[in-house]
């Protein structure tokens, strides 16, 4: 819903890192995006492309790795990954004492720069 403000934050963070390192341009950016982050990859890519023009990322390609929701079960000790945005019970044993460990990511991993 607020992909525009997320794209703006993203461009600000990578532009600052780029300048600090004394690089000229950003060629590509790797992003991890959890399926339960509330951010839609297509909308984010659209916003990024529209907003990158006046930054060192003006020619950058945004590469999004979608991360599924995953959890660890306190009942059976297993770990699991699901396709949904949520977990109602452990898919391995059906129990309810699990912890969500992944799927909320909104992380910049790294970027390719040139001088």
């Amino acid at each position, binding site marked *: *819903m*607020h992909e525009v*403000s*997320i794209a703006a*934050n*993203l461009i600000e*963070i*990578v532009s600052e*890192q780029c300048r600090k*390192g004394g*690089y000229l341009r950003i060629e590509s*950016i790797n992003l991890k995006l959890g399926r*339960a*982050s*509330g951010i839609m990859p297509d909308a984010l890519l659209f916003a990024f492309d529209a907003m990158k023009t006046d930054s060192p990322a003006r020619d950058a390609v945004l590469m999004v790795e979608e991360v599924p929701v995953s959890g660890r079960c306190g009942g059976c000790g297993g770990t699991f990954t699901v396709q949904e*945005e*949520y977990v*109602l*019970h452990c898919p391995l044993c059906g129990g*309810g*004492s699990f912890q*969500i460990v992944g799927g909320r990511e*909104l*992380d*910049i*991993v*790294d*970027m*390719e*720069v*040139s*001088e």
Partner: protein
Amino acid sequence: MKVKVATKILEANDRIAAENRKIFDGAGVFVVNLMSGPGAGKTSLLERTLAAKGGLRVGVVEGDIAGSDDAERIEKYGAPVVQINTGGACHLDANMISDVLGDLPLDELDVLFIENVGNLVCPAEFKVGEDMKVMLLSVAEGHDKPLKYPLMFQESAALILNKIDLLPYTDVDVGKIRKDAQSLNPGLRIFEVSCRTGAGIDEWVAWLGREAEKS
């Protein structure tokens, strides 16, 4: 050349939220981030809570895309209130709260409610410096909402099921809402209330008072 960035996009917001939280803690005020879809009854719940009070000194921050209707409703109860207009943004963020901290008599408050923008999605993603999140769902919105919007149900300490006076006119399955919401978040407290009739309000206000005392 490859450069490591390893940064959360919302890191700046989280940092400002932590600073807000420090200021709230220093003033001894318990902060509740109140969230729901548009029209579920956030302002009505605040009006009921202010009328019941239970000895608590309560202040309010109203977040709306535009207008000051909600702040005017709260002012009638004599509570300190600040209106934030987000000018289109679909949620409050930590920076918007930081900007109005100076306009509130924090030292004179026990509880500060931050009424977020009406939206079942994004308010849950942005910390503002709160001690806890509380969400409302009105029974008229239907029983499919927990599974359609799981994040807010997962992040909240309590769910206020509002407008139970309308139950005779709907086909909503309250049992399903309870079951799905509690599967998403086993620690979730659920209160069934009507801001129209006042049903269930006392129980909610008593619980709020206990939570505020604990912290």
